[in-house]
């Protein structure tokens, strides 16, 4: 796969970071290369790199220019990025409970109407998806998922909402998402999960990692309330299984 893709572009992001860009568009192969480079850097760190931030299509590498310069680092990154992708390792899979529709998913009916089907059918298509955490960004724990069923691709809302609830499960464009904190959003809200992908004073603080697999299953609103209480108390209520 890697051999068919062009080498990444090195985009200067100021004097202390470089963006290693594998694609300009959302592309699963590019995301795989991003995560592979991220993993390779974690396994054999380059002196001077302080932090890496994987996104859909690029890896942002923060570094200390007092330790390594742009050219020397760029060379090392290009060399690492040209390595063939390692064989796929077993990813973690999270089974995430979702209360769909009603007060927890205020856009479910509208999405069903827009796609000429029923809310139950939308839930079935969303639950039937096999997702991957492509990146985490924007606000803590906000997990951007690839793998949304093509029949659910639809443009974002014309008017983004200024505040959407913590735990919102939504779709936007060709992406699906798990939102942790209350935040503005222009995506369509299908439901809510009691799972906290970010929770201070819990170990681990962040549940999901880029590369993790995700599936959803439907719960009723009463179960949501029970699980929400357990989650609030620090219990990890997402089920972890081997992918």
């Amino acid at each position: 796969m890697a051999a068919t893709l062009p080498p990444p572009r090195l985009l200067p992001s100021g004097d202390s970071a470089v963006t290693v860009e594998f694609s300009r568009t959302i592309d699963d192969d590019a995301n795989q290369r991003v995560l592979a480079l991220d993993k390779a850097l974690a396994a054999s760190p380059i002196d001077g790199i302080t932090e890496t931030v994987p996104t859909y299509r690029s890896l942002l590498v923060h570094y200390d220019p007092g330790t390594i310069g742009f050219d020397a680092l760029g060379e090392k990154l290009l060399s690492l990025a040209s390595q063939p992708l390692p064989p796929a390792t077993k990813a973690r899979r999270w089974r995430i409970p979702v209360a769909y529709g009603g007060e927890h998913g205020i856009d479910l009916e509208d999405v069903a109407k827009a796609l000429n089907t029923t809310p139950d059918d939308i839930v079935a298509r969303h639950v039937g998806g096999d997702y991957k955490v492509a990146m985490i960004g924007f606000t803590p724990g906000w997990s951007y998922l690839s793998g949304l069923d093509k029949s659910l691709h639809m443009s974002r809302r014309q008017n983004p909402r200024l505040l959407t609830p913590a735990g919102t499960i939504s779709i936007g464009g060709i992406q699906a998402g798990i939102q942790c904190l209350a935040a503005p959003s222009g995506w369509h809200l299908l439901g809510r999960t009691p799972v906290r992908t970010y929770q201070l004073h819990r170990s681990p603080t962040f549940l999901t990692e880029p590369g993790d697999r995700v599936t959803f299953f439907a719960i009723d609103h009463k179960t949501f309330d029970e699980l929400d209480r357990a989650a609030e108390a620090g219990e990890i209520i997402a089920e972890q299984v081997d992918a």
Partner: protein
Amino acid sequence: MSRLVVASIGPASSVQDGGRLGAQRYGLTVSGAMDRVSLAAANTLVGNAPFAAAVEIGPFGASFTARDGAVRVAIAGAPRNADVAGSPLALDSSVTLKDGETLTLGFARGGAFTYLAIEGAIKGEKVFGSLAVNARAGLGSPYPRTLQAGDEFSVDTASGVAELRIELPKPASGPIRVVLGPQDDEFDDANKALFLDSEWKISATSDRMGYRLEGPAIKHLHGHNIVSDGTVNGSIQVPGNGAPIALMMDRGTSGGYPKIATIITADVGRLAQTSAGTAFRFKAVSMAEAQDEARKFAQLIRTLPDRLRSADTVALNIEALSDANVAGYAVSAVDAGTWQVTAEP
């Protein structure tokens, strides 16, 4: 232990330090001081590590009272009138507040942020190595929000060492330097030139998340949507309306607008301290020059202790007066009515 009580404080003031590193991959932004040299200078004056937690005071006034013992503090950053019990306190110097004494700070005269460092530093519970306030994520210690009157810090009782001042290099006054990219290829040459050759002003609707720039509209080559990628402190993104936003310490960790340029590390704090309404320009520099400046900047912070001088009371007062005369009162940092407070959702 003594206490330092916040007697009064304006909005946009919070505990900040060197920032929260290592969790941007989970969407957790770095936060930290808007002007790192000033934070480091204030900390150095009271013997703290350069990026220890201190109070970042926004453009408005503030006052702090020592309780249960003496407290030694220092101020650096945006100039403002300061006094302790009627005696003026110069910027870039330390002072010991006796039990019951109050340090009073006026509005910033130019710039926005002044740092109050406390001997022994602010204590609290670190998350990802930092006490810095990130109100949206509910992080920061001892208060996970902007400061309010009545807040207090448990602090070391003053050591009683002689007071110091610090001689900082004259801040550069030229254009804010940038490295083009990462998405400068989303703009044609005419629009890149427009960005680099125009005069800009910082909008009053700016905050710790981003500084909105007022000037000509910058047009994109292929529209304003890109697939979200990572941001850094000083990324200059251009949204659909063509008005650039310089991303600051509370930025989102990823963003979906093309980034035309990135402010060099050495100049991010200078932009942070540029008053709303003051005209300034950008200048593109090479990566080699930017990295050279970044190394010099790190060197300056490392060698701040070499710049400490003993505080001479007479010189200090003259300095305070001349500082006031030089800076003048003509420039109001921001309009009190429009300065946005990031902490309020």
